[in-house]
C-alpha cells in the first residue's frame, strides 16, 4: 500500500510537468483524467486510515534523496491522514470541477500544471517527515499559488494580488526555514518522528522565544491571520476553482497544520498560548465582522474563511486536549462546507454572470440542486444540527468554556463571531435563493440541467459527507484519537456524537442562533453601520499600505542603484582603487612592525640603475606625450626594460618571452594606431590633478606592499620540489618549461584555450567588415576587368 502512495505522489509531479503536452492530446478532458490521481491517493489514504491502529504512526521510506542523508519519507499518522484525506479528496473534486469551469480559459495546460504542482507539494508538505523537506514543499505551494492567483495575468488587480500573496507567504517561508534550522540544531534531528519519539521540547532553550516567534510568523502569514489577513480577500481574483481549493482546505490551513505538527515540540508555554489566542481571537472576530459588509459572494466567503482560520489558531492556542480535538474536527468541518460554498459561488457566477449577492434573487426555482446543497453547507457553517458543523461548534464552545481564566474574553468574542456567521449564512441564502416579489426574474446564461454533472458533483459530495459525518460522527473517532495521541501524547478516546444533552454549551448555541436571526432581521441598519466602519478602516487600508510600502521600497532601490551604477567607467575604477587603497593602508597600519629596515638592501648595480631610470623615463613619457606613436614606442621601451630586468635575475625564458611579446604587441599597435583617434585632453585640470594624486598614492602603496611581500617567508617554498624532481620525474632540465608542460600542464592547456578564444573574438569582431571589404573588392575588380575584356 505504502509504495503505491509514494508512486502516486510522484505521479502528481510527473503529471504536472507533462500536463502542457497532455493538454494537447486530451484538451477539455485533461482535468477529468488528471483527477484520477488524487482520487487514487484518496482511496489509498482511506485504506490506511481504516487500518490505522489507535496509537500507531509509521514512516514510508522512499529511495528519493533530496539532500544528503535526507530521504523523502512519508509520515502516516492521524494528523497527516486527516489533512491528506481532505487535500486529496477536495483536489479530486476540484479537478473535475475545473475541467468544465476552465473550459473557456486560455492556457489551460499551464493552469493544470500549476494546480498539480500545488496539489503534489501540499500533500508532500503534510506527509513529509523531514522538516527541511517540509519547508521545501511549503515554498513550492507559495510559488504555485502565486501562479494560480495571478492566472488572469492580463488583469492588473490579479497580478497585484498574486504578488501580495507571494511576498507575504514568502516572508513566512523564510522565517520557517530559519526556525526549522534552529530546531534541527537544538534537537539534533530534522525528522518529526525522531522529535516525537524522543519527546523533545525546546521550551527551556534560550532560543525558544526566537524560534516560536518565527514559527508563529510563518503560520500566521500562511494562514492569513491578522495583521497579514489581507492577502486572502485579494486572492479572490483567482479563478474560482483555485479559491475553492487553496482557500478552503489546503494552502491557508498549512499554517494551522504547522502549529499542530510542532505542538509537541514547541507548544504549551504561556507565550505560545497567549500569542496564538490573541491573534486567533482578533482574526476570528474581524473576519466575521467584515464578512457581513461584503457584497461579492467570493469575498464574503474569503472573510468567513479568515474567521474560521482564526478560530482554529485560537483553538490550538487554548491548548487543552478538548481544544485540539475541536480544532481538528473544525478543520474537517470547514474544509467540507467552504469547499462546497466556493464551488457554488463559481456555479452562480457561471450561470448568472455576477457574484454580487444583492443583485441576485429567486434562484431556487432555476437552480434547485445548487440551492439545496448551499443550504446544507450554510447550515454547517452556521453550526446547526444535523451537520458536522454543529458538532464542531459545540466542541469549540466546550473547549472555550473550560478555560476559566480567559473564557470571559474569548467566549463573548467567539459567540459574537458565530452570531455574525449565522447572520451571514442566512443572508447568503436569503439573497440568492428566495424570491423577492418586487424584482424581475434573473435571466440565466445556462439552465441547471445544462450544468455538467462534474461541476455539481463537488458541492453535492461535500454537502452529503457533511451530513453523513454529522449523523455518524463516530467514524472520525479513531482518526482524531490517533492524531491527538501524536500531538499531545495523550491516550484519549474520542467520542463524537451529535447530541450532548441539554447543557451550557447547547444553551449558548441556541442563544447564538437566535441572535444570528435577530441580526439578520436587522440586517439593513447593521450592514450600513458595518460598511461605514469599513470605510473608516480603509484609512488604514492594509493592502494599499502594503502595496505603497513595496512601491516605495522599489523606488528607493532604483534610486540608489542609479546612483551607484552611474555608467561612468572611470568612477567605477576610482571607487575600486580607493577602496583597495584604504584596505591596504589599514593592513599596513596593523602590521606596524614592518621589517623593511632590517634587511640590508642589496648592492646597487650601476647598469641596472641605468636600466631602471631609462624605463621609468619611458613610462612617464608614455603618460604625458601627445603623440600616439611616441607613446607606444615608449611603452615598448619600458617593456624591454622589464625584460632586461628578468634577464638580470636569471629568468631567461621569461626575458625572451617578454621581448617577443612586447615586439608583437607593438607591431599590432602600430598597425592599428593611425586608424585610432588622436590623443585629446578630455578632462579638465582639476580632474587630472585629482587622478594624479590618487594614482601616485596607489603607486606608493603598491611599493610598500611589494616591499612587504618580498619578505614574506613561506614555510616551505614549493619550488624546491620542482628543482629536485624536474629531471628525475619529468626528464627535463629547463625547470620553467617542465613546469609549463608537465607539472602544471593543465594550466597551460587552459591558457591555450583562452588564447584561442581571444583570437576567435578578434576574428568575429571583424568578420562582417572583412566580408564587405571582399565583396566591394570583387565588385571593384569586376568593374575594372570588364572594360578590359571589351577591348
Amino acid at each position, binding site marked *: 500500500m505504502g509504495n503505491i502512495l509514494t508512486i502516486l505522489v510522484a505521479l502528481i509531479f510527473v503529471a504536472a510537468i507533462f500536463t502542457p503536452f497532455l493538454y494537447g492530446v486530451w484538451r477539455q478532458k485533461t482535468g477529468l483524467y488528471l483527477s484520477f490521481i488524487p482520487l487514487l491517493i484518496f482511496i489509498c489514504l482511506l485504506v490506511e486510515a481504516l487500518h490505522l491502529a489507535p496509537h500507531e504512526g509509521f514512516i514510508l521510506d522512499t529511495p528519493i534523496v533530496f539532500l544528503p542523508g535526507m530521504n523523502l519519507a512519508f509520515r502516516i499518522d492521524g494528523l497527516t491522514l486527516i489533512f491528506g484525506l481532505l487535500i486529496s479528496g477536495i483536489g479530486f473534486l476540484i479537478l473535475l470541477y475545473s475541467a468544465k469551469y476552465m473550459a473557456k480559459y486560455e492556457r489551460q495546460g499551464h493552469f493544470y500544471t500549476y494546480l498539480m504542482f500545488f496539489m503534489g507539494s501540499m500533500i508532500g508538505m503534510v506527509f513529509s517527515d523531514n522538516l527541511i523537506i517540509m519547508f521545501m514543499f511549503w515554498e513550492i505551494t507559495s510559488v504555485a499559488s502565486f501562479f494560480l492567483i495571478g492566472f488572469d495575468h492580463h488583469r492588473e488587480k490579479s497580478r497585484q494580488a498574486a504578488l501580495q500573496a507571494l511576498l507575504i507567504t514568502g516572508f513566512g517561508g523564510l522565517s520557517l526555514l530559519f526556525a526549522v534550522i534552529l530546531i534541527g540544531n537544538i534537537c539534533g534531528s530534522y525528522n518529526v518522528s525522531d522529535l516525537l519519539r524522543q519527546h523533545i521540547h525546546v521550551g527551556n532553550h534560550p532560543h525558544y522565544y526566537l524560534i516560536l516567534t518565527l514559527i508563529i510568523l510563518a503560520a500566521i502569514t500562511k494562514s492569513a491571520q491578522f495583521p497579514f489577513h489581507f492577502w486572502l480577500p485579494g486572492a479572490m481574483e483567482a479563478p474560482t476553482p483555485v479559491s475553492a481549493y487553496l482557500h478552503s482546505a489546503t494552502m491557508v490551513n498549512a499554517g494551522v497544520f504547522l502549529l499542530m505538527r510542532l505542538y509537541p515540540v514547541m507548544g504549551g508555554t504561556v507565550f505560545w498560548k497567549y500569542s496564538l489566542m490573541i491573534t486567533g481571537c482578533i482574526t476570528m472576530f474581524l473576519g466575521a465582522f467584515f464578512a457581513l459588509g461584503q457584497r461579492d459572494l467570493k469575498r464574503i466567503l474569503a472573510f468567513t474563511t479568515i474567521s474560521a482560520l482564526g478560530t482554529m489558531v485560537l483553538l490550538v492556542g487554548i491548548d487543552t486536549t478538548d481544544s485540539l480535538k475541536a480544532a481538528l474536527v473544525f478543520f474537517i468541518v470547514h474544509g467540507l462546507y467552504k469547499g462546497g460554498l466556493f464551488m457554488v459561488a463559481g456555479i452562480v457566477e457561471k450561470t448568472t454572470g455576477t457574484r454580487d449577492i444583492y443583485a441576485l434573487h429567486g434562484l431556487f426555482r432555476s437552480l434547485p440542486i445548487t440551492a439545496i446543497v448551499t443550504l446544507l453547507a450554510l447550515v454547517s457553517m452556521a453550526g446547526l444540527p444535523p451537520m458536522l458543523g454543529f458538532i464542531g461548534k459545540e466542541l469549540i464552545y466546550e473547549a472555550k468554556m473550560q478555560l476559566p481564566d480567559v473564557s470571559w474574553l474569548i467566549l463573548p468574542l467567539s459567540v459574537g463571531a458565530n452570531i455574525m456567521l449565522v447572520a451571514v449564512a442566512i443572508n447568503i441564502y436569503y439573497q440568492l435563493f428566495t424570491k423577492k416579489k418586487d424584482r424581475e426574474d434573473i435571466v440565466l446564461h445556462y439552465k441547471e440541467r445544462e450544468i455538467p454533472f462534474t461541476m455539481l458533483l463537488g458541492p453535492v459530495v461535500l454537502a452529503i459527507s457533511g451530513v453523513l459525518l454529522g449523523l455518524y460522527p463516530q467514524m472520525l473517532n479513531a482518526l482524531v484519537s490517533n492524531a491527538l495521541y501524536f500531538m499531545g501524547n495523550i491516550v484519549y478516546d474520542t467520542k463524537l456524537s451529535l447530541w450532548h444533552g441539554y447543557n451550557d454549551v447547547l444553551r449558548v448555541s441556541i442563544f447564538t442562533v437566535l441572535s444570528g436571526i435577530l441580526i439578520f432581521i436587522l440586517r439593513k441598519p447593521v450592514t450600513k453601520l458595518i460598511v461605514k466602519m469599513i470605510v473608516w478602516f480603509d484609512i488604514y487600508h492594509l493592502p494599499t499600505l502594503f502595496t505603497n510600502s513595496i512601491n516605495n521600497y522599489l523606488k528607493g532601490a532604483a534610486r540608489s542603484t542609479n546612483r551607484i551604477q552611474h555608467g561612468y567607467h572611470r568612477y567605477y575604477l576610482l571607487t575600486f582603487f580607493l577602496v583597495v587603497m584604504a584596505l591596504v593602508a589599514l593592513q599596513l597600519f596593523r602590521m606596524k612592525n614592518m621589517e623593511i629596515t632590517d634587511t640590508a638592501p642589496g648592492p646597487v648595480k650601476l647598469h641596472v640603475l641605468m636600466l631602471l631610470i631609462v624605463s621609468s623615463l619611458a613610462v612617464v613619457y608614455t603618460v604625458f606625450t601627445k603623440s600616439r606613436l611616441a607613446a607606444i614606442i615608449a611603452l615598448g621601451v619600458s617593456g624591454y626594460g622589464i625584460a632586461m630586468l628578468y634577464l638580470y635575475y636569471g629568468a631567461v625564458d621569461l626575458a625572451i618571452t617578454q621581448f617577443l611579446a612586447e615586439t608583437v604587441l607593438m607591431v599590432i599597435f602600430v598597425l592599428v594606431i593611425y586608424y585610432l583617434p588622436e590623443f*585629446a585632453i578630455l578632462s579638465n585640470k582639476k580632474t587630472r590633478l585629482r587622478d594624479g594624486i590618487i594614482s601616485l598614492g596607489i603607486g606608493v602603496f603598491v611599493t610598500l606592499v611589494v616591499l612587504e611581500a618580498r619578505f614574506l617567508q613561506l614555510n616551505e617554498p614549493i619550488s624546491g620540489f620542482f628543482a629536485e*624532481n624536474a629531471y628525475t620525474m619529468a626528464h627535463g632540465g629547463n625547470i620553467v618549461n617542465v613546469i609549463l608542460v608537465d607539472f602544471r600542464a593543465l594550466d597551460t592547456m587552459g591558457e591555450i584555450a583562452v588564447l584561442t578564444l581571444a583570437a576567435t573574438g578578434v576574428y568575429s569582431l571583424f568578420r562582417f567588415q572583412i566580408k564587405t571589404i571582399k565583396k566591394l573588392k570583387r565588385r571593384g575588380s569586376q568593374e575594372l576587368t570588364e572594360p578590359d575584356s571589351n577591348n
Partner: protein
Amino acid sequence: MEHLIAIFIGLLYACGVYLVLRRSIVKVILGIFLLSNATNLIIFMAGGIKRGGVAIIEEGAEVADPSLISDPLPQALILTAIVISLGMSAYILALKYRYFDVTGTHDLDQLKNTDQR
C-alpha cells in the same frame, strides 16, 4: 637594489592607474598594458629574487640546488601571464578599433548607456 625595483613597480602602477582613469579609450588601453607588466613584476618580486642562478639543471646533474637558482614557479606563472596578456591586448585593440568604427567616439563618458549606438 630590490627597493629600487619596488619603487619602479610603484611608478608603473601610478602611471597605469592614471592612464586607466582617463576618458580617452586609447590611453585606457595603454594603462592596461602598463598595469599588466607591473603586476608580472610584482609576482616576480614576491618569489624572492636572486642574482644569477638560471633555473636550469646542469647537463649530467640530477637535481638543482634550490638555493642557487631563482625560483622557477613564478617564472612559469609569469610566462603564462605574458602570453595571455598578449592575446588579451590584441583583443582589446581589435575591440577598440571596432568600437571607434561603430560609434565614432573615443570618449568613454559617451559610453554610459549600454543600449547606445
